[in-house]
């Protein structure tokens, strides 16, 4: 490796996000997989899933994501590939992987966990989704499911 590689900060190759949501697993699954919901909290993206494919489209129909679905187990677990097609620079990086887990808790709550990993070949994507990226998606999803309203602003 070159000397430059030594001074580069270590790339985070796995990211984990969690949020408690007061809703049934079915309602949360619906919020994750129904494009009419996703466009309200996922940066305007309409995300559609089959048991083998994930399509994500921007407001004008442009392709944000087109990846394989590896696991489709409603309403508990969804695993799919990730490439950031909304940015030419990030789209050129290696694909990574996103896992959604819905775990029912006491008191009518579920714990929603998102693990974005296999980011070894996608440092720009890793940086992009780690800032406001997933944090905004999950806080927006919680607000939408619990109150029926998208986050203002």
């Amino acid at each position, binding site marked *: 490796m070159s000397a430059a590689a030594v001074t580069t*900060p*270590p790339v*985070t*190759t*796995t*990211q*984990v*996000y*969690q*949020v*408690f949501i*007061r809703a049934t697993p079915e309602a949360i699954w619906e919020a994750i997989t129904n494009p009419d919901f996703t466009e309200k909290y996922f940066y305007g993206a309409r995300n559609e899933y089959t048991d083998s494919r994930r399509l994500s489209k921007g407001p004008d129909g442009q392709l944000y994501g087109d990846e394989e679905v590896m696991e489709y187990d409603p309403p508990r677990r969804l695993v799919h590939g990730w490439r950031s097609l909304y940015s030419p620079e990030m789209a050129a990086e290696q694909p990574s992987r996103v896992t959604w887990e819905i775990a029912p*808790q*006491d*008191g009518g*709550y579920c714990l929603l*966990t998102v*693990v974005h990993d296999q980011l070894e070949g996608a440092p720009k994507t890793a940086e992009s989704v*780690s800032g406001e990226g*997933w*944090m*905004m998606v*999950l*806080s927006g999803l*919680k*607000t939408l499911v619990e109150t029926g309203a998208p*986050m203002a*602003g």
Partner: protein
Amino acid sequence: MVTYSVGMDDDDAVFRALADPTRRLLLDRLYERDGRTLSELVGEQEEMTRFGVMKHLRVLESAGLVVTRRAGREKLHFLNPVPVRLIHDRWISKYAERQVSALAELKTELEDTA
């Protein structure tokens, strides 16, 4: 686990966890590099025992600010910023809006009387 059900949707747990400088430092360390073992975190806190770091990590975990995952034989600690965002949405932006609208009203009032 008692702290779990109480801390599930509880701003108090997040504020309490953030009220301690050592815990904020641990969050900063995870922000710099995520997914670390207890030993790695202890190694950076020269003035703290393994037990002390463990205790603080437990508080952060029950507030939802740190999430642990197993990777083989290792337990890795990850920074989870979502509770901070929720606090921001519920508290900070609320008061920021009020401040803005108060200023807007003041402006209207001053201009009307001028």
